[in-house]
């Protein structure tokens, strides 16, 4: 009996061990793979390492944009006082959406209402969400709008206001930033414990105050990260562009990889180039994040570095922009609304691209320009402004007529043709091609276009010279302009092309539209003997490895112009500036205000004035285009001014401005051009005069 009972006890023990062993079999053999993975993951931590965005330099090496340390104020959501009251409703909303088989939460617009009386804040969210639901057997997409409301509790609001006072920003602004950051948490793009930046570039003192008194600002932390600095402020602001925090839509698109590069992918609060070079070369400028794969113990202390991919600084850009030329161009058109471009005629390197009015990109994050400002300072008029060209178009027509051997030797201008007027010279008068260009006779070109070249010939040559097409300059948001054709009119209005419209196009008026850069490009083609170059802004990129590389270049198109015929055009353009009766003679010849340009500078300028009318009550567009020196062209330039009045000609305003830019052209662009001593003396005088005033 006793023996049986002892055996029973042993069998019971065996059962116990068997039970444990069965469990071990389940954990180690059946689920072993799962737990091995879990263990591998839990001991491995990946950490980002950061590097700076590439700098942008002018041709001479001057820094135009670079990263410098900045202090941001961020909120750690789950460290705010009463955070569940603030965060939970928002996150819940998102969770709800996710559970409903959501495809995408589109936009979150946060409207912050300042409730002055109670001291709290109400935040209401506009949500637009796209749902995918199964209706029967089909997936149905439906859009839903909704709003949600969060009342920020008093304690959190008090801290918020204290910080707002410290950083001199409205508390509502901070709240808006915060809730937009919280929305990212809701999407699962960020964790609740990660700081959301709510105020950028707050300055050292505010940062120090928050950093040293964490008890007074619970939930707020200082995040040090790069801020973009533009040391020359508004210099070349349009060409450079600016950076902003990455938007939710961009984040969604580039969260995994940025143009195929995983290391350059975006995280919330990253900066992205918005316009200009910053946007066009954002990928190159953007640093590659490094990844450290670490083995960590339970206290998250690093044990071993398993993998270390170092962060890579973004590529530095060297622009073709010359700081002196750029500031001369900007100074020239300062106070006007317009644009000025200076380009190396042979290569298409842009030495200056000025658009007026300008803005200061350093102020943009905090003081964005008024969107209702009619002068639109953010607009880069050099590539985004589309204007009728006016009589500078006659250059293209003249070249076309000469090349096609369809230029009339001489016609009699009676001041009108088919009801279109010519008021540019005394009538009646016999004009040949040279005279017609010099005096800008309209009738000569009305007749050339209508009777000799035909509208199709005109359009053909305008196309060859790149009008109505993007120049392909490496800047975003370039506009193509517009080149009207009979085919377009038939399609758009269902009407045939009229001779009167040919007359309009013949003198470059509406509906023809060009950008100043297109104009500068075709003038450069005239100057360099007929090669249509692609305008370039970037000379080279220097990557993190220190090896320079040149952005790929399109071969320039050769227009196969006959040198002798082009020479006639050059001569006419010279006479425009330097001969009696030339429309720009007033600006380049001797006058009370200034001496003769050729005598002062030692070389002559080829140019063409142009005035275009905009419809309605809007003022004229004044142009002065050309190249210099006339005998051996080095640079092509374009000055465009939007006037407020109608009775103003390009010759009156734009040509003197072009002269001011040319006078300040550094000697390095005029090597081998005779008259160096003259220019040096002139520049000395200029410097004395400018320092005197």
């Amino acid at each position, binding site marked *: *009996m*006793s*023996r049986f*009972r*002892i*055996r*029973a*006890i*042993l069998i019971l*023990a*065996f059962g*116990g*061990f068997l*039970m*444990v*062993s069965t*469990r*071990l*079999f389940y*954990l*180690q*053999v059946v*689920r*072993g*793979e*799962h*737990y*091995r993975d*879990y*263990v591998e993951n*839990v*001991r491995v931590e990946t950490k980002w390492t950061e590097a700076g965005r590439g700098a942008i330099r002018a041709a001479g090496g001057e820094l135009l944009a670079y990263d410098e340390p900045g202090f941001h104020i961020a909120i750690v959501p789950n460290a705010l006082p009463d955070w569940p009251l603030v965060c939970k409703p928002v996150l819940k909303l998102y969770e709800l959406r996710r559970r409903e088989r959501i495809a995408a939460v589109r936009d979150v617009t946060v409207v912050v209402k300042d409730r002055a009386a109670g001291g709290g804040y109400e935040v209401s969210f506009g949500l637009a969400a796209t749902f995918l639901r199964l209706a029967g057997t089909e997936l149905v997409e439906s859009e839903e709008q909704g709003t949600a409301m969060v009342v920020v509790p008093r304690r959190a609001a008090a801290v918020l206001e204290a910080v707002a006072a410290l950083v001199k920003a409205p508390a509502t602004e901070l709240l808006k930033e915060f809730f937009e950051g919280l929305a990212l948490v809701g999407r699962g793009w960020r964790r609740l414990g990660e700081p959301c930046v709510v105020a950028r570039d707050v300055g050292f003192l505010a940062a120090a105050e928050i950093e040293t008194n964490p008890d007074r600002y619970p939930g707020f932390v200082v995040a040090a990260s790069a801020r973009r600095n533009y040391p020359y402020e508004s210099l070349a602001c349009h060409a450079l562009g600016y950076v902003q925090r990455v938007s939710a839509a961009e984040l969604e698109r580039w969260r995994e990889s940025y143009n195929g590069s995983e290391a350059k992918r975006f995280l919330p609060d990253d900066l992205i180039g918005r316009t200009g070079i910053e946007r066009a070369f954002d990928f190159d400028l953007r640093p590659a994040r490094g990844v450290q794969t670490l*083995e*960590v*113990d*339970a*206290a998250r*202390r*690093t*044990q*071993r570095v398993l993998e270390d991919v170092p962060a890579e600084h973004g590529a530095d850009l060297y622009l073709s922009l010359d700081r002196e030329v750029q500031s001369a161009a900007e100074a020239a058109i300062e106070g006007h609304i317009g644009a000025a471009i200076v380009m190396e005629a042979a290569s298409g390197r842009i030495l200056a691209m000025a658009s007026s009015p300008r803005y200061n990109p350093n102020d943009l994050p905090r003081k964005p320009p008024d969107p209702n400002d009619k002068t639109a300072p953010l607009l880069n008029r050099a590539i985004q402004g589309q204007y009728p060209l006016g009589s500078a178009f006659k250059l293209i027509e003249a070249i076309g007529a000469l090349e096609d051997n369809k230029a009339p030797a001489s016609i009699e201008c009676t001041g009108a043709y088919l009801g279109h007027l010519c008021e540019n010279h005394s009538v009646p008068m016999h004009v040949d091609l040279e005279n017609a260009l010099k005096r800008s006779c309209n009738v000569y070109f009305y007749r050339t276009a209508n009777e000799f070249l035909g509208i199709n010939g005109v359009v053909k040559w305008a196309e060859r010279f790149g009008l109505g097409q993007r120049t392909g300059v490496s800047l975003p948001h370039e506009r193509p302009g517009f080149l009207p054709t009979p085919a377009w009119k038939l399609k758009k209005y269902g009407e045939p092309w009229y001779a009167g419209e040919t007359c309009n196009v013949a003198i470059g008026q509406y509906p023809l539209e060009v950008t100043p850069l297109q104009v500068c490009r075709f003038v450069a083609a005239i100057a360099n003997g007929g090669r249509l170059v692609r305008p370039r802004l970037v000379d080279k990129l220097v990557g993190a490895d220190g090896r320079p590389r040149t952005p790929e270049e399109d071969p320039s198109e050769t227009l196969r112009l006959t040198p002798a015929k082009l020479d006639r055009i050059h001569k006419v353009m010279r006479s425009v500036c330097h001969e009696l009766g030339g429309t720009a003679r007033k600006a380049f010849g001797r006058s009370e205000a200034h001496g003769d340009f050729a005598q002062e500078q030692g070389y002559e300028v080829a140019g063409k004035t142009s005035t275009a009318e905009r419809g309605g009550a809007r003022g004229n567009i004044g142009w002065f285009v050309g190249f210099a020196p006339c005998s051996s062209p080095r640079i092509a330039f374009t000055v465009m001014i939007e006037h407020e009045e109608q009775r103003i000609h390009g010759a009156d305003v734009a040509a003197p401005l072009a002269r001011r830019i040319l006078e300040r052209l550094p000697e390095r662009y005029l090597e081998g051009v005779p008259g160096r001593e003259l220019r040096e003396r002139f520049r000395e005088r200029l410097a004395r005069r400018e320092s005197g005033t």
Partner: protein
Amino acid sequence: MIGRLRLTPRDWLLLAVLGALLAIGLAFVYSASYRSGPMGEGYYTSSPAKQIQWIAIGLILALALQFLSYRHLLEHAYALYLVGLGGLALVLYFGVTSEEIMARRWLPLGPFRVQPSEFMKLFTILALARYLTDTQGQGRLLALAVPFGLVAIPMLLIVREPDLGMALVFLPIVFAMLYAAGARVRHLGAIVALLAVAATIAWPHIHAYQKERVRAFLLQDDPRVRGDLRRLDLYQLEQAKAAIGSGQLFGQGWMRGSQNRLNYIPAKTRNNDFIFAVICEEWGFAGANLVLALYLLLLVLCGLVAEEVRNAAGRLIVVGVIAMLGSQAIINTAMAAGQLPIVGLTLPLVSYGGSSMLSSLLGLALVINVSAHRGTSLSADTLGPDAGARRAMAPMPEETFMRR
């Protein structure tokens, strides 16, 4: 002198199994004593060295125990029992808490800290063996009152420490000894039912951390709680399970388990309560079963001793030790594998801990003692001057107690 102990090959095998378990235990205490530091600059604590000391002390005491017969101990069983109770009472007033656990379980004794509850198990076994052989039970339910009373007093004192796990080990001991002594199964069943009722009544009064442990155990596979690993017990359970699972068939290798070496299994329990998780991680399913098999072998060898011993008290002592070691081993391993709530119980002979090591070794020394003295008659003993007095008490008739 050892020669006078007539050790059979079976006893030698038992000693070999014991040696194997001690060696494995020492190896894993060493592995688990590693503390990771920054950049892999870890260090080993002194616990393996201390463990060697305790094993040495334990072996010396076990050897010393062989110089007297267990029957002498039985003679003083009640006195020892009272000494043990005194120790437990002292713990409640003068006990110290360890730096890791907020419970008074230790008595400071010079440079050492001893855990009286560990020794109380042995004293209770002796007292029960003495009582059950002394009394002639009629198989009545009421006759079970005294044995249960004998375990209830130390249990209550231990619960006060609090050390619920240790207290609960007394139950298998008393049940196994009563069963082996011939108590009726339905009576024992009735007591189990009674205890179940008592447990439900006691539930609201147990400590919060204990409730939390039970909750963590019950909810361990609930996805809503799984992600929320802030609660230490659930974290511990998760990490122990991950450690066990990641061992797979043959383990990550001794001293190479990442859960162990990188501190994921909390350091304070890694070399004692959760040493089995370390074994599972580093030696895998194969090694863990080897340890379980060694335990089973140890228990079976003890069981053979019990079957062979003609002396009822000796047999009951062996059964008590079997119950003590077996139940602790099962509870500890099952707890690590997530089959039981977390309780602070060591894996006997393997875990780090002086008192636990001593009581396990002394328990086995008792078994060896019983085995070695199984055939001796008292007349053959040279027990000293009062041997005659003892003769009156012996020989104890076999299977005369508690018979129907």
